[in-house]
């Protein structure tokens, strides 16, 4: 079966972003960009399913400006077979991304779509659920285990109370949580090979999707800073401070 994996280009996990001085946006000039960590887990899961013989083809999709081809190449180096870029310089909100993915799902007819549960820039945690809604598919969000069976997939989900397992009929959408797997590193030969793998380009227009934003960011600002407090010498002083100064115990 075929799997579609969505990957997003985001500011690297280790970069601490700051708002621009005029408060219009975050400052992403000259910062390192990477594949969203949750998307990397999604690619890894697809590759493992292929290695198990469950999956025959992995298509990696990304959306955005030309540069997001780098993240598609990363997915190809990790083991995806071919890539699709939906090219646009316009702002893409999760609903628009879900609509573009829906159009690609109709074209590619994958049995499984794997996405990260959220991207570490917008922290929205929406796209997978919205794609599932628009295509009428079942959704296994926040997955920590995925088992494909005949015509269905069992997904163990990380929920507030612990773990929940659901069974979804195929085709289905899965979004990955942190502990689904530990992504491999791409080897140099695979990085070289990835450059030769096919990468098609399309646009939201060609897919017939209206990507007009529905929300507008009026302002971005740093959160209220917390002041560092004091160092206490020992446990006795700590307990004393908590009792008499902070009055929390």
């Amino acid at each position, binding site marked *: 079966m075929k799997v579609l994996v969505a990957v997003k280009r985001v500011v690297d996990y280790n970069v*601490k*972003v*700051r708002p621009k001085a005029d408060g219009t946006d*975050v400052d992403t000039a000259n910062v390192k960009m990477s594949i969203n960590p949750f998307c990397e887990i999604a690619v890894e899961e697809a590759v493992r399913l292929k290695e198990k013989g469950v999956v025959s083809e992995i298509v990696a999709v990304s959306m955005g400006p030309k540069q997001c081809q780098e993240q598609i190449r990363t997915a190809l180096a990790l083991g995806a077979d071919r890539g699709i870029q939906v090219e646009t310089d316009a702002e893409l*909100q*999760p*609903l628009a991304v879900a609509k573009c993915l829906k159009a690609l799902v109709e074209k590619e007819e994958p049995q499984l779509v794997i996405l990260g549960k959220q991207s*570490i*820039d917008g*922290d*929205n*945690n*929406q796209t997978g*659920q*919205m*794609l*599932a*809604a*628009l295509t*009428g598919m*079942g*959704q296994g*969000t926040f997955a920590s285990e995925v088992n494909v069976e005949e015509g269905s997939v069992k997904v163990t989900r*990380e*929920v*507030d*109370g*612990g*773990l*929940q*397992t*659901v*069974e979804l*009929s195929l085709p289905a959408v899965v979004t990955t949580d*942190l*502990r689904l797997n530990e992504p491999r590193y791409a080897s140099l030969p695979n990085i070289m090979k990835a450059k030769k793998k096919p990468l098609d380009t399309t646009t939201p227009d060609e897919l017939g999707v209206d990507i007009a*934003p*529905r*929300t*507008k*960011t*009026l*302002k*971005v*600002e740093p*959160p209220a800073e*917390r002041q*560092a*407090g*004091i*160092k*206490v010498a*020992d*446990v006795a002083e*700590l*307990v004393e*401070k*908590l009792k008499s100064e902070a009055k*929390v*115990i």
Partner: protein
Amino acid sequence: MSILVIAEHDNAELKGATLNTIAAAKAIGGDIDVLVAGSGCGAVGEAAAKVAGVSKVLVADSAIYEHQLAENVAKLVADLGKNYSHVLAPATTTGKNMLPRAAALLDVQPISDIIAVESPDTFKRPIYAGNVIATVQSSDAIKVASVRATAFDPVAAEGGSAAVESVSAADDAAVSKFVGEELAESDRPELTAARVVISGGRGMQNGENFELLYKVADKLGAAVGASRAAVDAGFVPNDMQVGQTGKIVAPDLYIAVGISGAIQHLAGMKDSKVIVAINKDEEAPIFSVADYGLVADLFDAVPELETKL
């Protein structure tokens, strides 16, 4: 304006996060209806009717809602949501799973994790693991938002007398089935509702050593949490994770033990009233947000803390 709040519950009890979500609805202003979708959930409907400020409680009682499967609940929420100006749900794993699905059915771009209401169409929400706060305005006819519970003080659970109305269930989407669950059982308070939280990180070295924290927790009536590092290492289960992608907590007292303080962890706890850090590395970033820092070996300090409490 009229607001539909989706109740968080387990078919027996109304969960606290619902009260914080109703508080956000109050900040928007307008009539507040609460939807209880579940199975055998009559008691939850009655509890919701007693919550201060609620106009009406809608109860959809059907076996298809027993386990809050998003495919079924979202359909119901989208059907009912058409009649409202706002649809809100707590930003719990249940809310985050269901609400975007309902929003897509309504052709709405939802707003996740709101922490403040600026006006009926404008909200604040954290992005980049809480390193940036964005003010976001929605142009959709219906505003759909998940609410970060710790950012809104809960409304009173008593004092209201809303009418309870039953609504019929939507069709079964029939694409998903509940198979089973493994829920953590603990006599300690729930992590997101506890007044005191004590969390352990990689410095705990193994799961057995968390026993040290449980002993302190039992003296303080605290919940026990963990950093991602401790969960990834398999010391403790995922439901204990505090951080950007885990639980968001804001207790009166947060004690971080053997946690270095990655920004992803700080995102989950930095709104706590008082933060204590115990770490042997005095350069650990956790000290930059701690009100009281103790540079010490946790294996000495934590047992001593327990005896002194």
